[in-house]
């Protein structure tokens, strides 16, 4: 049984149980996503993938909303684009650091979406999330300053690696991804896996750097 859906003015066919995002991808319509990942369960947290469905009071997250027969969807209406821009601006407003100082700037999905949506410097003034760099573990380095709370690492650890290293703690603006009772991630709780690292859309999770052992408390001595 095929479902008939109007996607940006064109009639297309979809299967029951398919999400709006899947339908759009099948039909060559590009909807930006951040917290969504094809290998992970949907979450709907970032709200970047919102689309307009006629008859709905609010915009709906396309990554988790199943299609229905007769649905009329607009993926790039002015309302949708403006909302997406504001959301990316919000993420950038508290996301710390400058991109050209970041190792992952080239592969950062947040930066890519910001560029696509024409978002420049955010209008919003809000305090930045600053957290100490966690580089104790030889397997993984965490910089929560760059975290955008997409929770891909939580789901990757849970669903792909079948571990439960990460959890969410605190509320609202202060919520963050924690390990144990908010301890820096070390080799005791998480070792030799690294599954979550490629899932991170920003530079929050990375392979530890080579220079790690020389960093703390020691002056840089140049020997020639």
């Amino acid at each position: 049984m095929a479902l008939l859906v109007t996607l940006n003015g064109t009639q297309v066919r979809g299967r029951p149980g398919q999400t709006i995002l899947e339908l759009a991808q099948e039909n060559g319509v590009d909807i930006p996503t951040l917290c969504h990942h094809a290998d992970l369960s949907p979450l709907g947290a970032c709200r970047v993938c919102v689309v307009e469905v006629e008859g709905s009071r609010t915009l709906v997250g396309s990554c988790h909303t199943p299609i229905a027969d007769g649905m009329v969807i607009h993926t790039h209406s002015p309302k949708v684009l403006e909302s997406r821009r504001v959301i990316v601006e919000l993420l950038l407003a508290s996301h710390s650091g400058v991109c050209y100082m970041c190792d992952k700037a080239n592969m950062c999905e947040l930066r890519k979406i910001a560029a696509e949506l024409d978002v420049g410097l955010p209008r919003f003034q809000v305090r930045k999330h600053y957290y100490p760099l966690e580089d104790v573990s030889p397997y993984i380095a965490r910089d929560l300053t760059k975290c955008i709370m997409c929770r891909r690492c939580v789901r990757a650890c849970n669903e792909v690696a079948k571990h439960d290293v990460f959890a969410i703690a605190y509320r609202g603006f202060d919520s963050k991804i924690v390990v144990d009772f908010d301890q820096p991630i070390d080799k005791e709780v998480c070792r030799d896996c690294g599954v979550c690292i490629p899932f991170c859309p920003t530079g929050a999770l990375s392979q530890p750097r080579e220079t790690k052992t020389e960093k703390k408390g020691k002056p840089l001595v140049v020997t020639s």
Partner: protein
Amino acid sequence: MPEKRVVLKNCGVIDPQDIASYLAADGFKALEKALKLHLKQVIDEVKASELRGRGGAGFPCGLKWEFASKAQGNEKYVICNADEGEVGTFKDRYILENDPFSLIEGIAIAGYAIGAKKAYIYLRAEYHFLLDLLQNAIAQAKKKGFLGHLDIEVREGAGAYVCGEESALMDSIEGKRGEVRYRPPFPPTSGLWGKPTIINNVETLTNIPRIILNGAEWFGKMGTEKSKGTKVFSVSGDVAKPGVYELVLGSPLRELVEKLAKAEKVKTVQIGGATGRIIPYAMIDASLSFESVLGAGAITVFDESRDIIDIVGKTMEFLAEESCGKCTPCREGTEVMVETMERLGRGEGLKKDIKVLEELAETMMLCSMCGLGQAAPIPVVDSLEHFRGEYENRIRQS
């Protein structure tokens, strides 16, 4: 319209510790009547009464029951939302304190109607002192044989405002961090532990025995076209007589605020708590109904000595603190609003602030996952509409 006691008819009349006094006041007659009917008849009666949810959203109660009744599933649940977290509401506490038996009877009827064997009362953490009273009432009803078809358990919350939201509430009962879920699926098809679930407010469920006993027609005679019945209001703030009042829906706000609660020199009234509407004194003749303004029944009155920027700023602080932090617009947006309101409060507003607030509010209302984020900008939007001058005064002139 004068006060009319329908939901609160037993409050202060019966002894909440003793089921005998409730039985003397026609207690559990409605349940006996409902158990003799087919469950479809019970749902039809509730549907015919056009009872709408009293927790703020105003969803038709009968429709919700019908969805859950028709949903496939071997287990179904009834949840009573007693997580009365909205700022300035204390009507559910008043009902629980004075008439827990009516609520239990309502839950028992709901359980019969949708075919549930288990019901939960999600009690707010701050209402811990009511736990004994409730459990005593449940035990007495059980002893008298009224709960043969349904097991009622009281679950306590841990103090989060967002857990009054239905999906976060279910997460909390399941033992998880209280966070909203995306919808669809809606609770009547997939709720607690993925099973069909109905979630009703304390006041909604307390209305049920009255409707079953007296009939939908009797209920429909009260109220306006789209809002039937009565509503219990909790009035607080700058009033001489704060407290719980029950009025027929559609009554004017002025009657409640000025006549019953004896407020003077009113500047503004916040209706529905932190995420409620802020209306100026000029609109005090508005009617209290789902068509106009209502919310969960919290009426907070502010007199002329109060500052709007301060009121809105404090409200935003509360909402930012209570946001669960799952979706971006609510997590980041509330914090931006808090910091902007703080700046305005110091008289250091920027020229762009008003425009930025409006654009941010629009996105938050459109994109947030749950009612908290969607309704969080309402105080800002409403106050910008009615008290724009006070915002403009706070913008730095240089």
